[in-house]
Protein backbone atom coordinates (compact mmCIF):
# COMPACT_ATOMS: atom_id res chain seq x y z
CA UNK A 1 0.00 0.00 0.00
CA UNK A 2 1.27 3.49 -0.72
CA UNK A 3 1.94 5.56 2.40
CA UNK A 4 -0.29 8.38 1.13
CA UNK A 5 -3.03 8.19 -1.46
CA UNK A 6 -5.51 10.75 -2.81
CA UNK A 7 -7.94 10.18 -5.69
CA UNK A 8 -8.39 13.96 -6.04
CA UNK A 9 -4.83 14.25 -7.36
CA UNK A 10 -5.61 11.63 -9.99
CA UNK A 11 -8.72 13.43 -11.23
CA UNK A 12 -11.31 10.92 -10.01
CA UNK A 13 -13.27 13.27 -7.75
CA UNK A 14 -15.72 15.99 -8.82
CA UNK A 15 -16.04 19.35 -7.08
CA UNK A 16 -17.59 19.48 -3.60
CA UNK A 17 -21.39 19.53 -3.88
CA UNK A 18 -24.05 20.89 -1.54
CA UNK A 19 -27.11 18.86 -0.58
CA UNK A 20 -28.77 21.92 1.00
CA UNK A 21 -31.52 21.38 3.56
CA UNK A 22 -32.30 17.86 2.37
CA UNK A 23 -31.38 14.50 3.92
CA UNK A 24 -29.91 13.20 0.68
CA UNK A 25 -26.36 12.35 1.82
CA UNK A 26 -26.97 8.77 0.64
CA UNK A 27 -27.51 10.01 -2.93
CA UNK A 28 -24.32 12.12 -2.90
CA UNK A 29 -22.32 9.19 -1.53
CA UNK A 30 -23.76 6.99 -4.32
CA UNK A 31 -22.98 9.44 -7.13
CA UNK A 32 -19.48 9.99 -5.71
CA UNK A 33 -18.62 6.31 -5.82
CA UNK A 34 -20.16 6.03 -9.31
CA UNK A 35 -18.19 9.05 -10.56
CA UNK A 36 -14.95 7.52 -9.31
CA UNK A 37 -15.62 4.04 -10.72
CA UNK A 38 -16.70 5.56 -14.04
CA UNK A 39 -13.44 7.54 -14.14
CA UNK A 40 -11.46 4.34 -13.57
CA UNK A 41 -13.39 2.54 -16.30
CA UNK A 42 -13.46 5.27 -18.95
CA UNK A 43 -10.84 7.87 -18.00
CA UNK A 44 -13.58 10.54 -18.00
CA UNK A 45 -14.82 12.42 -14.97
CA UNK A 46 -18.53 13.15 -15.24
CA UNK A 47 -20.59 14.79 -12.52
CA UNK A 48 -23.59 12.49 -12.05
CA UNK A 49 -27.17 13.20 -11.00
CA UNK A 50 -28.27 12.94 -7.38
CA UNK A 51 -31.69 14.30 -8.34
CA UNK A 52 -32.41 11.17 -10.39
CA UNK A 53 -31.93 9.11 -7.20
CA UNK A 54 -34.09 11.48 -5.14
CA UNK A 55 -36.95 11.38 -7.65
CA UNK A 56 -36.80 7.83 -9.00
CA UNK A 57 -35.15 5.52 -6.46
CA UNK A 58 -37.57 4.09 -3.92
CA UNK A 59 -35.81 0.77 -3.42
CA UNK A 60 -36.25 -0.93 -0.05
CA UNK A 61 -33.85 -3.05 1.95
CA UNK A 62 -35.24 -6.57 1.99
CA UNK A 63 -34.45 -7.18 5.67
CA UNK A 64 -35.06 -3.89 7.47
CA UNK A 65 -37.61 -2.56 4.96
CA UNK A 66 -35.80 0.78 4.90
CA UNK A 67 -36.71 2.46 1.63
CA UNK A 68 -34.89 5.21 -0.24
CA UNK A 69 -37.10 8.28 0.00
CA UNK A 70 -35.47 11.43 -1.34
CA UNK A 71 -34.77 14.04 1.33
CA UNK A 72 -36.18 11.59 3.89
CA UNK A 73 -33.07 9.43 3.69
CA UNK A 74 -31.85 6.25 2.05
CA UNK A 75 -29.10 3.69 1.70
CA UNK A 76 -26.30 3.52 -0.87
CA UNK A 77 -26.75 -0.24 -1.30
CA UNK A 78 -30.45 0.23 -2.11
CA UNK A 79 -29.41 2.87 -4.65
CA UNK A 80 -26.97 0.45 -6.35
CA UNK A 81 -29.79 -2.07 -6.76
CA UNK A 82 -32.02 0.63 -8.26
CA UNK A 83 -29.24 1.65 -10.66
CA UNK A 84 -28.67 -1.93 -11.81
CA UNK A 85 -32.40 -2.20 -12.58
CA UNK A 86 -32.83 1.27 -14.10
CA UNK A 87 -29.72 1.00 -16.26
CA UNK A 88 -27.59 3.79 -14.82
CA UNK A 89 -27.28 7.46 -13.94
CA UNK A 90 -27.74 10.60 -15.99
CA UNK A 91 -25.28 13.47 -15.76
CA UNK A 92 -25.78 16.38 -13.40
CA UNK A 93 -26.26 18.73 -16.35
CA UNK A 94 -29.12 16.71 -17.88
CA UNK A 95 -30.85 16.03 -14.53
CA UNK A 96 -29.72 18.85 -12.18
CA UNK A 97 -30.05 18.91 -8.40
CA UNK A 98 -32.90 20.98 -6.94
CA UNK A 99 -32.78 19.72 -3.35
CA UNK A 100 -36.34 18.42 -3.04
CA UNK A 101 -38.11 15.32 -4.24
CA UNK A 102 -40.21 15.58 -7.41
CA UNK A 103 -41.59 13.45 -10.20
CA UNK A 104 -39.20 11.02 -11.86
CA UNK A 105 -37.94 12.48 -15.13
CA UNK A 106 -35.29 9.86 -15.84
CA UNK A 107 -34.52 9.39 -19.54
CA UNK A 108 -32.68 6.08 -20.26
CA UNK A 109 -31.31 7.57 -23.47
CA UNK A 110 -29.29 10.07 -21.42
CA UNK A 111 -27.50 7.52 -19.22
CA UNK A 112 -23.87 8.55 -18.63
CA UNK A 113 -22.67 5.79 -16.28
CA UNK A 114 -23.81 2.20 -15.88
CA UNK A 115 -23.21 0.06 -12.80
CA UNK A 116 -22.17 -3.55 -13.36
CA UNK A 117 -21.80 -4.74 -9.80
CA UNK A 118 -21.22 -3.62 -6.24
CA UNK A 119 -19.52 -5.03 -3.18
CA UNK A 120 -19.16 -4.30 0.50
CA UNK A 121 -15.72 -4.03 2.09
CA UNK A 122 -14.61 -5.81 5.27
CA UNK A 123 -14.32 -3.96 8.59
CA UNK A 124 -10.51 -4.02 8.53
CA UNK A 125 -9.11 -0.54 7.82
CA UNK A 126 -6.11 -1.90 5.88
CA UNK A 127 -8.55 -3.73 3.62
CA UNK A 128 -10.52 -0.49 3.24
CA UNK A 129 -7.29 1.28 2.19
CA UNK A 130 -6.39 -1.50 -0.28
CA UNK A 131 -9.86 -1.46 -1.81
CA UNK A 132 -9.77 2.33 -2.03
CA UNK A 133 -6.54 2.14 -4.03
CA UNK A 134 -7.77 -0.68 -6.25
CA UNK A 135 -11.45 0.22 -6.82
CA UNK A 136 -11.58 4.01 -6.53
CA UNK A 137 -13.38 6.24 -4.01
CA UNK A 138 -15.60 4.28 -1.60
CA UNK A 139 -19.05 5.03 -0.19
CA UNK A 140 -18.89 5.18 3.60
CA UNK A 141 -21.39 5.59 6.43
CA UNK A 142 -20.33 7.17 9.71
CA UNK A 143 -21.58 8.80 12.87
CA UNK A 144 -21.69 12.53 12.12
CA UNK A 145 -22.14 13.88 15.64
CA UNK A 146 -18.82 15.79 15.60
CA UNK A 147 -19.30 17.11 12.08
CA UNK A 148 -21.80 19.87 12.98
CA UNK A 149 -19.07 21.85 14.77
CA UNK A 150 -16.03 20.65 12.75
CA UNK A 151 -13.85 23.36 11.23
CA UNK A 152 -10.58 21.58 10.42
CA UNK A 153 -7.70 19.38 11.54
CA UNK A 154 -7.69 15.64 12.13
CA UNK A 155 -10.83 14.62 13.98
CA UNK A 156 -10.15 11.85 16.47
CA UNK A 157 -12.85 12.05 19.16
CA UNK A 158 -12.20 10.30 22.47
CA UNK A 159 -15.80 9.06 22.48
CA UNK A 160 -17.87 8.54 19.31
CA UNK A 161 -20.50 5.84 19.00
CA UNK A 162 -19.74 3.26 16.31
CA UNK A 163 -23.35 2.13 16.30
CA UNK A 164 -25.12 5.34 15.39
CA UNK A 165 -24.08 5.48 11.74
CA UNK A 166 -26.25 8.25 10.28
CA UNK A 167 -24.38 10.01 7.45
CA UNK A 168 -23.27 8.91 3.98
CA UNK A 169 -19.98 10.33 2.65
CA UNK A 170 -17.22 9.49 0.18
CA UNK A 171 -13.77 8.17 1.12
CA UNK A 172 -11.27 9.58 -1.39
CA UNK A 173 -7.86 9.03 0.19
CA UNK A 174 -5.65 8.73 3.22
CA UNK A 175 -2.54 10.32 4.60
CA UNK A 176 0.08 8.97 6.99
CA UNK A 177 0.87 12.27 8.63
CA UNK A 178 -1.57 14.94 9.75
CA UNK A 179 -0.02 17.32 12.24
CA UNK A 180 -1.72 17.59 15.60
CA UNK A 181 -0.91 20.66 17.71
CA UNK A 182 -2.02 18.92 20.88
CA UNK A 183 0.13 15.84 20.42
CA UNK A 184 2.96 17.75 18.71
CA UNK A 185 3.15 14.83 16.34
CA UNK A 186 1.51 13.30 13.33
CA UNK A 187 -1.58 11.16 13.08
CA UNK A 188 -2.67 9.09 10.07
CA UNK A 189 -6.07 10.11 8.72
CA UNK A 190 -8.73 9.40 6.12
CA UNK A 191 -9.70 12.07 3.58
CA UNK A 192 -13.48 12.23 3.34
CA UNK A 193 -15.53 14.21 0.84
CA UNK A 194 -18.72 15.62 2.34
CA UNK A 195 -21.77 17.14 0.61
CA UNK A 196 -22.30 20.31 2.67
CA UNK A 197 -20.58 22.75 0.34
CA UNK A 198 -17.06 24.18 0.33
CA UNK A 199 -17.70 26.52 3.24
CA UNK A 200 -17.93 23.62 5.67
CA UNK A 201 -14.83 21.86 7.09
CA UNK A 202 -11.59 21.91 5.10
CA UNK A 203 -13.04 23.23 1.82
CA UNK A 204 -15.81 20.65 2.08
CA UNK A 205 -13.58 17.82 3.26
CA UNK A 206 -13.30 16.04 6.61
CA UNK A 207 -10.11 14.53 8.02
CA UNK A 208 -10.91 11.57 10.27
CA UNK A 209 -8.21 9.68 12.15
CA UNK A 210 -7.34 6.28 10.77
CA UNK A 211 -6.89 2.95 12.50
CA UNK A 212 -9.44 3.16 15.32
CA UNK A 213 -12.73 2.34 13.52
CA UNK A 214 -13.62 5.83 14.67
CA UNK A 215 -17.32 6.84 14.56
CA UNK A 216 -18.14 3.51 12.86
CA UNK A 217 -16.51 4.59 9.59
CA UNK A 218 -15.54 0.99 8.84
CA UNK A 219 -18.98 -0.57 9.29
CA UNK A 220 -20.74 0.47 6.08
CA UNK A 221 -18.19 0.68 3.26
CA UNK A 222 -19.01 -0.20 -0.33
CA UNK A 223 -17.61 0.01 -3.87
CA UNK A 224 -19.07 -0.28 -7.36
CA UNK A 225 -17.83 -1.34 -10.76
CA UNK A 226 -19.12 0.49 -13.82
CA UNK A 227 -19.31 -0.47 -17.46
CA UNK A 228 -16.74 0.88 -19.91
CA UNK A 229 -19.22 1.78 -22.63
Amino acid sequence: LPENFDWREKGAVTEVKNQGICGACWAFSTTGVMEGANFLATGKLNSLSEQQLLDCDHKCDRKDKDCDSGCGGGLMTNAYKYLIEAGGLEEEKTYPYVGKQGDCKFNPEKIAARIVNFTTISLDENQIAANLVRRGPLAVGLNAVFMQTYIGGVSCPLICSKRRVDHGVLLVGYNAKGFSILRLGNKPYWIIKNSWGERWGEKGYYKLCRGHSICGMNSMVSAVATATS
Partner: protein
Amino acid sequence: FYDEANIQQVTEEGQRLNKKFVGENLAMLGNKIHEEKFQMFMKEYGKEYSSKEEYVHRLGIFAKNVIRAAEHQALDPTAVHGITPFSDLSEEEFEMKLLGLKSGNSGDSSLNDVMGLSQTTAPELDVKG
Protein backbone atom coordinates in the same frame (compact mmCIF):
# COMPACT_ATOMS: atom_id res chain seq x y z
CA PHE B 1 -20.99 58.78 47.72
CA TYR B 2 -22.74 55.68 49.12
CA ASP B 3 -22.22 53.56 46.02
CA GLU B 4 -21.35 49.88 46.02
CA ALA B 5 -17.67 50.50 45.57
CA ASN B 6 -17.42 52.26 48.89
CA ILE B 7 -19.97 50.53 51.09
CA GLN B 8 -20.58 46.82 50.91
CA GLN B 9 -23.36 45.18 52.89
CA VAL B 10 -21.98 42.15 54.70
CA THR B 11 -25.16 40.74 56.17
CA GLU B 12 -26.67 37.57 54.74
CA GLU B 13 -29.28 39.42 52.68
CA GLY B 14 -26.61 41.72 51.24
CA GLN B 15 -24.43 38.80 50.12
CA ARG B 16 -27.42 37.15 48.48
CA LEU B 17 -28.26 40.36 46.61
CA ASN B 18 -24.62 40.85 45.59
CA LYS B 19 -24.42 37.32 44.19
CA LYS B 20 -27.68 37.87 42.30
CA PHE B 21 -26.38 41.17 40.93
CA VAL B 22 -23.09 39.61 39.78
CA GLY B 23 -24.90 36.57 38.32
CA GLU B 24 -27.34 38.71 36.34
CA ASN B 25 -24.57 40.89 34.98
CA LEU B 26 -22.50 37.89 33.96
CA ALA B 27 -25.53 36.39 32.19
CA MET B 28 -26.17 39.71 30.41
CA LEU B 29 -22.51 39.94 29.41
CA GLY B 30 -22.65 36.33 28.16
CA ASN B 31 -25.79 37.03 26.12
CA LYS B 32 -24.19 40.16 24.64
CA ILE B 33 -21.08 38.23 23.60
CA HIS B 34 -23.26 35.50 22.09
CA GLU B 35 -25.39 38.03 20.22
CA GLU B 36 -22.31 39.77 18.80
CA LYS B 37 -20.96 36.40 17.65
CA PHE B 38 -24.39 35.52 16.26
CA GLN B 39 -24.55 38.71 14.22
CA MET B 40 -21.07 38.02 12.83
CA PHE B 41 -22.23 34.48 12.01
CA MET B 42 -25.33 35.84 10.21
CA LYS B 43 -23.19 38.22 8.18
CA GLU B 44 -20.57 35.56 7.38
CA TYR B 45 -23.08 33.00 6.13
CA GLY B 46 -25.75 35.36 4.76
CA LYS B 47 -28.41 34.22 7.24
CA GLU B 48 -31.75 36.01 7.47
CA TYR B 49 -34.68 35.24 9.74
CA SER B 50 -38.31 35.99 8.99
CA SER B 51 -39.27 37.54 12.35
CA LYS B 52 -37.87 38.83 15.64
CA GLU B 53 -39.18 35.68 17.35
CA GLU B 54 -37.32 33.46 14.89
CA TYR B 55 -34.17 35.55 15.43
CA VAL B 56 -34.39 35.09 19.20
CA HIS B 57 -35.09 31.37 18.78
CA ARG B 58 -32.04 30.92 16.51
CA LEU B 59 -29.90 33.01 18.87
CA GLY B 60 -30.79 30.59 21.69
CA ILE B 61 -29.83 27.58 19.55
CA PHE B 62 -26.62 29.34 18.47
CA ALA B 63 -25.63 29.97 22.10
CA LYS B 64 -26.15 26.28 22.90
CA ASN B 65 -24.09 25.28 19.87
CA VAL B 66 -21.22 27.54 20.95
CA ILE B 67 -21.15 25.58 24.23
CA ARG B 68 -21.48 22.31 22.29
CA ALA B 69 -18.53 23.26 20.09
CA ALA B 70 -16.43 23.82 23.23
CA GLU B 71 -17.49 20.38 24.50
CA HIS B 72 -16.56 18.84 21.14
CA GLN B 73 -13.21 20.63 21.27
CA ALA B 74 -12.51 19.04 24.66
CA LEU B 75 -13.53 15.59 23.39
CA ASP B 76 -11.77 15.95 20.02
CA PRO B 77 -8.60 17.92 20.78
CA THR B 78 -6.72 17.17 17.54
CA ALA B 79 -9.39 18.89 15.41
CA VAL B 80 -10.69 22.45 15.50
CA HIS B 81 -14.33 22.89 16.49
CA GLY B 82 -16.32 26.11 16.50
CA ILE B 83 -18.92 28.10 14.59
CA THR B 84 -19.92 26.51 11.28
CA PRO B 85 -22.68 27.23 8.71
CA PHE B 86 -24.93 24.93 10.79
CA SER B 87 -24.52 26.64 14.16
CA ASP B 88 -28.13 27.92 14.07
CA LEU B 89 -29.58 24.40 13.78
CA SER B 90 -30.60 22.30 16.77
CA GLU B 91 -29.25 18.75 16.98
CA GLU B 92 -32.61 17.39 15.83
CA GLU B 93 -32.81 19.79 12.87
CA PHE B 94 -29.23 18.96 11.92
CA GLU B 95 -29.97 15.23 11.91
CA MET B 96 -33.20 15.67 9.96
CA LYS B 97 -31.99 18.20 7.38
CA LEU B 98 -28.35 17.29 6.75
CA LEU B 99 -27.92 13.60 7.43
CA GLY B 100 -30.24 10.94 6.01
CA LEU B 101 -28.50 7.58 6.10
CA LYS B 102 -31.08 5.02 7.15
CA SER B 103 -30.50 2.23 9.70
CA GLY B 104 -28.68 4.90 11.70
CA ASN B 105 -29.30 3.26 15.06
CA SER B 106 -28.24 -0.22 14.10
CA GLY B 107 -25.29 -2.01 15.63
CA ASP B 108 -22.33 -3.15 13.54
CA SER B 109 -23.59 -6.69 13.08
CA SER B 110 -27.02 -5.65 11.88
CA LEU B 111 -25.49 -3.06 9.56
CA ASN B 112 -23.52 -5.86 8.02
CA ASP B 113 -26.74 -7.83 7.66
CA VAL B 114 -28.39 -4.84 5.97
CA MET B 115 -25.51 -4.72 3.52
CA GLY B 116 -25.63 -8.50 2.99
CA LEU B 117 -21.97 -8.45 4.00
CA SER B 118 -21.63 -12.21 4.34
CA GLN B 119 -22.72 -12.65 0.71
CA THR B 120 -21.01 -9.81 -1.12
CA THR B 121 -17.89 -8.79 0.82
CA ALA B 122 -14.91 -8.10 -1.41
CA PRO B 123 -12.16 -10.75 -1.27
CA GLU B 124 -9.21 -10.01 1.02
CA LEU B 125 -6.37 -8.12 -0.65
CA ASP B 126 -2.70 -8.43 0.20
CA VAL B 127 -1.73 -5.39 2.28
CA LYS B 128 1.75 -6.43 3.42
CA GLY B 129 4.66 -4.08 2.99
